[in-house]
């Protein structure tokens, strides 16, 4: 009796052909993109999205940059980049990304742009919502694939993909987008964050070929808004210990500044609004290191 592997076709659907077509579409869509960078962290609440939009603003000073909000269920990049509510427009077999206001080109695609209200949950139409654990993850992966392959990205120096928390997110991205140039890992200097982030790095290193460009220590200290004095928020030295353990470089440390959050809430780019603040200087230095590494 023939086995599965003896039979060369699937009866008429050509599922493998369809999957290859999807992969080819992704590849051709990104032909004008020089570098795809994943911004990841195993831990939530480390300031990954606000760092992503500000890195994008810093990188965009040298040329066009795109941001994909990979957090399908909890999109926030649309608001942070000031494009939430912008009307979407259709291109040739594609959707045009939202263009952030300002002197440089920052293109954004996020679930934020598709949702009715800012507090609308992401609900997928389905014959039944029961047993959704079996397909919701697939829908999220499918949405991420469409954001990559169906957005008219055009020419970009960098496409940043802001991934949601979870050690499985980078492998998921690699499944739909094999050509990732590198990943940046964001962490807080707390022991809990470092442990979770360390796990994510090890997973990425063990099962993927994606190079880890380095660690970014976010909220590394507190800058007094009055006198500019930098105080510690967490014990020092822990990030260096992790970096040494997992053998990845530290790209930089970004001190906590309440103005980062204020700007994010108002859809403005902190590095543009407050270029002289210590955190803005740190973010620019990280962007410069990324350019050098790539």
């Amino acid at each position, binding site marked *: *009796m*023939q086995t*599965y592997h003896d*039979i060369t*076709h*699937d*009866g*008429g*659907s*050509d*599922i493998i*052909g*369809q*999957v290859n*077509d*999807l992969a080819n579409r992704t590849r051709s869509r990104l032909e004008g993109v020089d570098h795809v960078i994943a911004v990841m962290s195993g831990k939530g609440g480390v300031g990954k999205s606000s760092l992503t939009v500000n890195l994008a603003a810093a990188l965009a000073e040298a040329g066009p940059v795109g941001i994909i909000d990979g957090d399908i269920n909890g999109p926030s990049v649309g608001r942070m980049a000031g494009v939430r509510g912008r*009307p*979407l*427009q*259709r*291109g040739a*077999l*594609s*959707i045009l990304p939202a263009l952030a206001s300002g002197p440089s080109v920052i293109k954004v695609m996020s*679930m934020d*742009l*598709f*949702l*009715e*209200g*800012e*507090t*609308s*949950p*992401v*609900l*997928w*139409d*389905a*014959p*039944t919502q*029961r*047993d959704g654990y*079996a*397909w919701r993850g*697939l*829908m999220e*992966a*499918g*949405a991420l*694939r*469409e*954001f990559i392959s*169906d957005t008219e990205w055009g020419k970009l120096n960098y496409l940043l993909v802001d991934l949601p928390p979870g050690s499985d997110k980078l492998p998921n991205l690699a499944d739909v987008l094999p050509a990732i140039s590198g990943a940046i890992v964001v962490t807080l200097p707390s022991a809990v964050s470092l442990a979770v982030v360390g796990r994510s790095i090890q997973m990425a290193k063990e099962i993927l070929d994606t190079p880890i460009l380095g660690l970014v220590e976010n909220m590394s200290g507190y800058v007094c808004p009055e006198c500019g004095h930098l105080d510690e928020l967490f014990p020092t030295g822990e990030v260096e210990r992790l970096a040494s353990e997992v053998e990845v470089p530290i790209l930089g440390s970004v001190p906590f500044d309440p103005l980062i959050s204020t700007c994010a809430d108002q859809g403005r780019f902190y590095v543009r609004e407050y270029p002289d603040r210590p955190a803005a200087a740190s973010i620019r230095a990280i962007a410069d290191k990324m350019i050098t590494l790539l």
Partner: protein
Amino acid sequence: MKFLCMECDEAMSLESTDGPERGSMSVVFGCPSCGRKIAMLTNAMETQVVRSLGVKIGGRTVPSEPMEMVRGSLVNRRRNISDTLGPVETSPQNVELEESKCPFTGMVNDAFDNKASIQWSDAARRRMERIPDFARQMVMKGVEDAAREQGLHEVTESVLDDVRGRLGM
């Protein structure tokens, strides 16, 4: 997934598809040698898994629309999105082919185009505005589905009164 006719030891070919009917697809395969037919019947979860993969059982006859899955499957999408982007649909000449070979296009179109075909009276729409943003789209979808089941093309206040008990409005 492949199907084998054990008597002929030959791979079966897809012959027809039907549905989705209450979330279930019927996909018929036949043996090219002896003509024996079998039907694969999917449950709702299996149907949704195939849909979420972005592939179509029976193969594609027309290229996919941009953001087809997101636009076709997101319940709480922005109301004006079809105005700016156009509906997710197939050209009329391909509808018959799509219906016979491509069941999941039907689901996508159900989720997108048919909603646009239900009109709302001003009074009914005003009543919907009392519902919080996050729940409004879900409620409207439920009302439109109920109207469709009754063969109606417009939601009026009397339609709302009719379905409010069922939806707890």
